[in-house]
């Protein structure tokens, strides 16, 4: 069934129409029933009255009829004058002929029946009429005829008037009721609809439908609110997840840009230095300065790339510690030593509180030094020239506690957590003076965590310095004690060294450096050539690349170990892959040690020192 438009659109109209229609229908049915009953009763009463009147009249007119007394008969009929509804009355004799008539109210008696008819009532034309026999002592004396106006029409009109008034009143009541009903039924629903509309229009999921009733609408409101709540939660989660993804993405973009910049930056001074060396090959002072520049810049690049490699290892979960017994003082000293040039360059004062010698712990010395150096470097970098840097390291409550504090630019409170995020940099402005990839702190914290410790930052705010604290459980190392790793000594010269690597630039430059250090150096570019050179050259130490054409480093090492002439040589693997798997394989192939590219001169020196001993 199709509803009219005004009902389809509004619940309020529906309720009103419902109430009004119900009221009208009930009223109409009740009115019709009452009307029918009333009319019937009224007609019956009317006829009964007429019958009574006719009977009385018949009795009163019996004697006049019997004795043919017209005057007395007229008197008898005259009684009807008390009833104004009676229009006409007549008496008929025993022979059926009209005897006496009575007319009142200006009615013409023209239509009066001239002869008596059989007894009975008749209703027509809003009139009731009766023929009634006059019987005395069982003898028919004649007939009475009475005709009266029916009060039915008047009655009906009055009744309809009352009905109209009642209908009007009921309608008013129905409208009032519908207003009330609307408040009770429609209003909560409308509230619900309004809430739904707001949600749809504004995508505002924090909207809640007001619950004012305990009925089905209340249940609906609760269900809707529950749905909205879970929707809101989900959307919030999704939004924050998207936000996080966007942040990571943005950081990566920034990181790439920074990386390119940071990698490109050292190249310009290197080129300048090379140009100087070519332009004035004989100027010893300028040559030394150029070399110093190249040395500094290359170191910087190596550090950057090291960091990058570490980041990649951390993100792929491949960073492993090489724990050994470490002398805490030695590690701290080496870190302080490494940062010293930068501290001096920036004019800082560095106050160091070193631990007493002899404290050993089980840690990866390189990584521990890397962490301390990173913190010291940051302190030097983020403190304006002439600042003060304090360093302390020691054992407190069975825990290694190392502190680096400065009076530099500080960290805003909201950045304290973020600085440890990968690729985060507190200052992203183009004018920033500090370089770096923004991975140092993240890396440091991961390294400390791998040691089972924590790295925390504290700052009073921007411009008020920063303090970084490393805490690490002390795991007592075996008493045997490996040689202190950081005790550089003069490089002993005069060794026979074999270098095999297919990276000619790397291997040639390394050979040149080692020759300058006084060693005898032989260079080959593939495994087979390396093997035949070794047989003839009998190197004391051989540095072998792993990934090489014709014969890989593992194979070469096995061969060298297998031949009597080279079995005693020190074999060092040099590779770009520092995975534990490779390390184990190298050991199995007969290597004595394992260096990860880029290889520093210092590392080679250390290896050679060990050989000497």
């Amino acid at each position: 069934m199709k509803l009219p438009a005004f009902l389809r659109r509004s619940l309020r109209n529906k309720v009103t129409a419902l109430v009004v229609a119900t009221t009208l229908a009930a009223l109409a049915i009740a009115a019709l029933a009452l009307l029918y009953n009333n009319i019937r009763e009224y007609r019956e009463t009317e006829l009964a009255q007429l019958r009574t009147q006719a009977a009385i009249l018949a009795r009163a007119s019996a004697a006049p009829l019997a004795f043919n007394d017209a005057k007395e008969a007229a008197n008898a009929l005259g009684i009807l004058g008390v009833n104004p509804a009676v229009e006409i009355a007549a008496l008929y004799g025993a022979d059926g002929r009209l005897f006496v008539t009575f007319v009142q109210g200006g009615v013409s008696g023209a239509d009066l029946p001239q002869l008596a008819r059989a007894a009975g009532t008749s209703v027509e034309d809003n009139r009731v009429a009766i023929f009634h026999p006059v019987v005395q002592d069982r003898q028919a004396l004649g007939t009475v005829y009475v005709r009266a106006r029916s009060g039915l029409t008047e009655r009906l009109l009055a009744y309809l008037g009352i009905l109209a008034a009642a209908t009007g009143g009921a309608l008013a009541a129905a409208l009032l009721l519908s207003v009330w009903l609307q408040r009770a039924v429609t209003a909560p629903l409308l509230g619900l609809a309004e809430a739904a509309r707001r949600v749809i229009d504004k995508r505002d999921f924090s909207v809640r439908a007001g619950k004012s009733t305990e009925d089905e609408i209340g249940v609906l409101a609760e269900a809707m609110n529950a749905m909205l709540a879970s929707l809101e939660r989900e959307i919030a989660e999704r939004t924050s997840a998207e936000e996080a993804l966007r942040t990571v993405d943005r950081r990566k973009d920034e990181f790439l840009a920074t990386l390119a910049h940071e990698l490109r930056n050292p190249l310009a001074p290197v080129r300048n230095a090379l140009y100087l060396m070519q332009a004035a090959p004989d100027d010893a002072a300028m040559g030394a300065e150029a070399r110093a520049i190249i040395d500094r810049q290359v170191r910087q690049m190596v550090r950057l790339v090291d960091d990058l490699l570490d980041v990649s290892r951390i993100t792929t979960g491949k960073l492993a510690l090489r724990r050994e017994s470490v002398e805490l003082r030695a590690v701290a000293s080496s870190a302080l030593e490494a940062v010293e040039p930068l501290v001096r360059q920036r004019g800082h004062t560095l106050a160091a509180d070193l631990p007493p010698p002899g404290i050993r712990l089980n840690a990866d010395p390189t990584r521990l030094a890397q962490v301390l150096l990173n913190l010291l470097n940051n302190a030097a970098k983020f403190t304006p020239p002439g600042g003060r840097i304090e360093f302390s390291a020691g054992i407190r409550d069975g825990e290694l506690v190392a502190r680096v504090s400065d009076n530099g630019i500080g960290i805003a409170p909201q950045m304290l957590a973020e600085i440890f995020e990968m690729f985060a940099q507190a200052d992203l402005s183009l004018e920033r003076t500090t370089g770096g990839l923004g991975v140092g702190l993240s890396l440091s914290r991961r390294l400390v965590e791998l040691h089972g410790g924590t790295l925390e930052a504290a700052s009073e705010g921007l411009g008020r310095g920063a303090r970084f604290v490393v805490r690490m459980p002390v795991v007592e190392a075996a008493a045997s004690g490996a040689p202190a790793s950081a005790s550089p000594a003069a490089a002993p010269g005069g060794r026979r060294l074999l270098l095999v690597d297919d990276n000619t630039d790397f291997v040639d430059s390394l050979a040149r450096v080692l020759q300058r250090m006084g060693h005898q150096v032989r260079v080959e570019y593939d495994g087979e050539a390396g093997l035949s050179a070794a047989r003839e050259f009998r190197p004391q130490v051989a540095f072998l690349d792993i990934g090489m054409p014709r014969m890989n480093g593992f194979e070469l090492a096995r061969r060298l170990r297998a031949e009597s002439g080279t079995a005693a040589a020190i074999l060092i693997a040099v590779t770009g892959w520092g995975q534990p798997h490779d390390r184990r394989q190298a050991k199995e192939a007969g290597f004595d040690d394992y260096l990860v590219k880029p290889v520093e001169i210092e590392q080679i020196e250390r290896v050679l020192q060990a050989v000497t001993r």
Partner: protein
Amino acid sequence: MRAALAGLLMLLCAAAAAQPLEHQVKAAFVFKFLSFVDWPAQSFAGLDAPLAIGVLGADELLAELNGIVQGRSAQNRPVSVRALREGEKPAGLHLIFVGRAAAAQIPRLAVLPGVLVVSESEGALEQGSMVNFVRVEGRVRFEVAPEQAERRGVRISSRMLAVAQHVKPGRL
């Protein structure tokens, strides 16, 4: 259909009795008086005992009345009519019509208990008659002396009194 038939019948009757004679009217009235008068119960021999009418000195009326009562009843009783001879003892009668010729008999008859005396002579009420026919403007009317009837145990309906030409006052 029935109504029409009844009407037709009445019309025929009316035509037949177009101009009723005086004795005919009086006979009809006498018969009708039976309906408006109450007699004491002891004046009847039994429940089915007839209402007995005696006619004295009015042969035409007697004949007419005989015709009227034929097969008819009054007050649930059959009606009998007989002639009353002068000097005859009026035993068992309820109504005695005394003709003009026998008016002298009225005082004697008017003392009989339980008998309504109907007469047609001027001043008859004074002689003890209870209902007396008179002529008024050429029509037959009657006058009544209800108190005199009452004295003999006969009660005349007030409705009959209402159509009487004259009601003789009396101590009732």
